[in-house]
């Protein structure tokens, strides 16, 4: 399917429909997830604050999904010199930074009632997600600081691929270092340990956030494609 969308004209035709559909899907799924999330009973230990999980955990999932998308797009752009992949990579970075920041802030808000601390420097997962945020910011800064767009793209792609190592570190950090953050409760050997009454709204919110990321990413990529066309048209007009 990625190969089919590699053609820019086909991508623009596809995304014209897909972006609004994903947006509607996102609102529906997130709405259903929030409804069920607030209908779920309060946790026997955490009380009502457990509901922050429905905002925090999907944001963290999508932040990693966004970096994975950035990495894959950068790979295709670097190896195949594909301009559309480069536009997609450029479009994904601010979204990823926003979702990571959301995960960090909501996690901090959840940590205060749960652990008594806004932030713990000794926890590997917190630090590696902060590193993920800094990688997004560094990517955007590097892209913005090089005037030649082609050279900026190449340099930023290399940086994005270097940072991919952070994703397995984030995932397995709670296994390798037993500090403070909650261990793996869903994607683990033996299946999820979360009760269904929480798992179902959480998965719905996860799907809703992912659909929202998809819609926004498609919209931003379209905008980047149009921007590049506008720039080349302006150049042609100036040279004519």
């Amino acid at each position, binding site marked *: 399917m990625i190969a089919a969308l590699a053609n820019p004209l086909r991508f623009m035709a596809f995304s014209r429909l897909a972006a609004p559909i994903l947006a509607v899907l996102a609102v529906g799924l997130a709405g259903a997830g929030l409804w069920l999330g607030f209908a779920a009973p309060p946790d026997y230990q955490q009380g009502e604050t457990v509901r922050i999980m429905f905002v925090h955990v999907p944001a963290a999932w999508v932040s990693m999904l966004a970096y994975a998308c950035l990495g894959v797009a950068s790979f295709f752009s670097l190896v195949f010199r594909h301009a559309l992949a480069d536009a997609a990579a450029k479009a994904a970075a601010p979204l990823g930074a926003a979702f990571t920041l959301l995960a960090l802030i909501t996690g901090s808000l959840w940590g205060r009632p749960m652990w008594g601390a806004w932030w713990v420097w000794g926890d590997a997962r917190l630090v590696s997600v902060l*590193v993920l945020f*800094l990688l997004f910011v560094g990517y955007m800064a*590097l892209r913005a600081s090089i005037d030649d767009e082609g050279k900026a793209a190449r340099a930023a792609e290399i*940086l994005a*691929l270097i940072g991919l190592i952070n994703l397995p570190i984030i995932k397995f950090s709670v296994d390798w270092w037993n500090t403070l953050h909650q261990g793996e409760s869903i994607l683990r050997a033996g299946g999820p340990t979360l009760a269904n009454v929480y798992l179902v709204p959480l998965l719905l919110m996860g799907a809703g956030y992912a659909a929202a990321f998809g819609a926004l990413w498609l919209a931003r990529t379209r905008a980047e494609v149009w921007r590049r066309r506008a720039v080349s048209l302006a150049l042609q007009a100036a040279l004519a």
Partner: protein
Amino acid sequence: MSALTLLFRRELSLAWGRGGGALLTVGFFAAAAMMFALAAGPSPERLAVVAGGVTWAALALASLLSLDRMFERDFDNGALELLALGPLSLEAVSAVKCMAQWAAGGAPLALGAPLVAMALGARPQSAPLIAAVAALGGIAFAFLGGTGAALALNSRRGGVLIALIVLPLLTAPVVFGGSAIAAFAGGLPWTTGFILLGAYSLAAAALAPFAMAGACRSALS
């Protein structure tokens, strides 16, 4: 004399700068550690507890200093194009530049680190470990710093951008080295952090030249 040795001697003499390069780096390192000491307040016991960690953090920052001259000088005066056309691959050239950076900057920092740590109140028994951590971590700092320097070629803002790119990659060696130093100070086993630091440095030395060469080729094209 082989091309590699010749290039290493050139890079080392440029980075060493008749003593100026190493002196500047160690001077900044001492000044930064002094800032931490002055800012920590009047209690020497409190400072002694964090002395090793503060020294290590100041060392990481000091190793960022001379990064923007690593590739940019050669890029501006055309030497990088000649090196790209020469008998050595750009990967080898990048690796040699980083090793020279480590020899001219990282090694003097590693020698000065125990002195600075003791000035902040660390015990003398921790001096060998601090020097070893600084030397081993310096390899990672040199190679990852070189990666940032190569990626930022052609950019409008050199130094600060390189620091922004490189610092997230440096968090892992800083954490590993810091945990080794803190564990030793607390009487706990320190080998895990030290071994992880060594592994990270070796991985950086093995993989970073490919990233640097790719970035140089993109900048030269």
